[in-house]
């Protein structure tokens, strides 16, 4: 259960090897690792993106992300989770966020990873500003993200997903 907020890029391969090794050291029998990487798109709403700048609320961000990880751990039998979120100014194709989850069986890791992303999108204090060919603009929150989060409120977790 780790959270990192950083300006630097991250290496997915290294992070997953660390997660696999940590599981081994702790004698956890990891069978499945699901990971999500979000990257800066080069187009949004029809305009070419030059840069994407991420602002956040430092004292609140780590607390909010740790709370999301804890909620995921309560809902599903996962072994470990990792959230890395970058802040600052990024270019198209750069990585923004990594969420990785390990578990004994795949169903738990898939559900927990998607859950963490859906809650991160709607509960963690990050804001994106795009610099496009049309000028700068704040990215608007999406109704689809609220809907995705709402979908989990009625979702039954432990013992109800495939193993």
């Amino acid at each position, binding site marked *: 259960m780790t959270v990192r907020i950083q300006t630097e890029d991250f290496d997915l391969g290294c992070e997953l090897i660390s997660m696999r090794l940590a599981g081994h050291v702790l004698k956890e029998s990891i069978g499945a690792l699901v990971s999500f990487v979000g990257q800066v798109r080069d187009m949004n709403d029809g305009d070419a993106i030059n840069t994407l700048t991420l602002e956040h609320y430092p004292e*609140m961000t780590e607390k909010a992300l740790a709370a999301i990880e804890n909620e995921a751990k309560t809902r599903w039998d996962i072994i470990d989770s990792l959230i890395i*979120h970058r802040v600052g100014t990024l270019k198209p194709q750069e990585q923004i966020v990594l969420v990785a989850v390990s578990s004994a069986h795949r169903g738990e890791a898939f559900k927990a990873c998607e859950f963490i992303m859906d809650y991160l999108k*709607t509960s963690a*204090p990050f*804001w994106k500003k795009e610099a496009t060919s049309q000028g700068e603009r704040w990215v*608007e929150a999406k109704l689809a993200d609220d809907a995705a989060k709402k979908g989990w409120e009625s979702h039954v977790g432990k013992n109800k997903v495939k193993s």
Partner: protein
Amino acid sequence: MNIKILYFARIKEAVNYSTEELDLPSDISTVTALKNYLSQRGENWANLFSGKQVVRAAINHNLVDDLATIKTGDEVAFFPPVTGG
């Protein structure tokens, strides 16, 4: 009652403040009351809190709704809907 207020993203730009320390009258004890109090500062403030746009609030790093109580020493934050990930 002394509080600290932080502003983020679009809201920080609208009011041209990122953070301030404030000595509030003691009857300003909810988020709604604080929004109304700040709205008296001028048109940009009044517009911001008029309800036309969504302004989320956090107290001491926890998301709260407008009925939440503010106590002395609290850190209050105002920001638009989040867009990370």
